[in-house]
């Protein structure tokens, strides 16, 4: 895939996250999802709007990755987790030593770039 080609919806989200203004998709029935969406994955409503993502989330789980995919070959080891921001859950790398990370902690969300290929990814910081 050419570097200039964007993934519409996803790259818009990442741009907004980089600018400190992340959002999620909310349908008329209050279901939350992530872009790109034409229909709500829960109820198929096509009445979708962007809503602001809460600033802090709760860390639901994490791992310490030692064997990476090629895109993160020079980044290991890293701590990877899933955090819940309101009704939305996101997967990202936690910028902290693994000894300092615990399930249930508060995290904030931003972006960082892979040391391997310079591609951006979702990053969490302990709040």
């Amino acid at each position, binding site marked *: 895939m050419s570097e200039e080609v964007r993934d519409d919806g996803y790259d818009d989200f990442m741009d907004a996250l980089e600018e400190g203004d992340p959002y999620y998709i909310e349908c008329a029935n209050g279901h939350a999802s992530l872009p790109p969406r034409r229909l709500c994955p829960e109820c198929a409503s096509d009445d979708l709007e962007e809503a602001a993502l809460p600033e802090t989330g709760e860390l*639901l*789980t*994490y791992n310490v*990755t030692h064997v990476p*995919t090629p895109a993160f070959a020079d980044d290991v080891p890293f701590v*990877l*987790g899933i955090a819940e921001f309101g009704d939305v859950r996101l*997967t990202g790398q936690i910028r902290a030593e693994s000894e300092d990370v615990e399930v249930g902690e508060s995290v904030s969300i931003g972006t960082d770039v892979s040391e391997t290929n310079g591609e951006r*990814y979702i990053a969490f910081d302990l709040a």
Partner: protein
Amino acid sequence: MTKFGEMPDRTGRDLFADAGESAIKDAGIDREEIDALYVGNFMGELSERQGHMGPLMAKMLGLDVPATRVESACASGGMAVRQGIHAIRAGSADVVLVGGVERMHNMGTTGATGGLSVAADDLWEIKHGITFPGAYALMAQRYFATHGGDREDLAEVAVKNHANAANNPLAQYQSEITVEKVLDAFPVADPLGLFDASPITDGAAAALLVSEDYAAEHDLDAAVSIAGTGQGTDDLALQHRDSLTWTPATADAAEEAYTDAGIDAEDVDFLEVHDCFTIAEVLALEGLGLYDPGEAITAAREGETTADGELPVNLSGGLKAKGHPVGATGVAQITEMTKLFRGDHVNSDAVENAEVGLTHNAGGTVASAVVHVLEVEA
């Protein structure tokens, strides 16, 4: 099935032809009788630049029949079996060859890790560093936090499955291991180490399915019948699930398969489940309704699921020790269980009086699951 293991030089087509020919010979059916072929394969495009395996594998076996590849990540093999059953039940085929194949070692460890990762969500998981060991590590960590249990409990699953494979000549690992060895192994994605993970494996498996009428008309000794089939689907990305420790796709597949076979979970005598990682066996036993949520973590440690336990699980050695050539795994579960029932498997003695067996094959972080109920007459 072929021997599972490290055979980087063998092409996918050669592996599949090997397994397919064995299946046809084992069944004792003339190849002209075969009406259709379904081939399970996950990442042929990535490992050997080969897609479109239906026609390729048909000719490798000298078949001139409708041939289709089936892809559902690590559940590709089980889904190929299900397609074969559907074809027979729909009346469009009497004899179907189902199989699966995966070539992985030629990709190397990082290459295979990258290849397998495409079964996850590219935008919301892969781009942020998830791997399959990593995803199951996230499920294990959440399980520990929610239900308790620890790495030692999981190690007991690996020890059990290695013990089951120790004398299985087709298994990749034919050696017993200890809890200490599992705990001290290199951390692939903490809390999971190298011995919590199924290996990278080359291999293929195939089985010949026939309709009941065909078996009766031809006086075939089809000792084992597939009495039930079920399939479940969930969000592709782990993060989108309501629970990180409950697998609805497994539960849905099981419910459909139990209903189809007219049985309850309690009727199952032994199982082959998708233990791509030790925690996966725990989640499978709970999703299948054999243990309550939070209860299966101690099953191996308590000896309930060992070969001499009440409910033997993964007598073949499972994915963990038999090996996991991903597209072949779901078919290998069927062929190993058939041999366990027939009495010509090294571990057949453990299930001498069994009448009902269950296979469970999962794709991704169980975004896909397929369950089959196998029965023999008492």
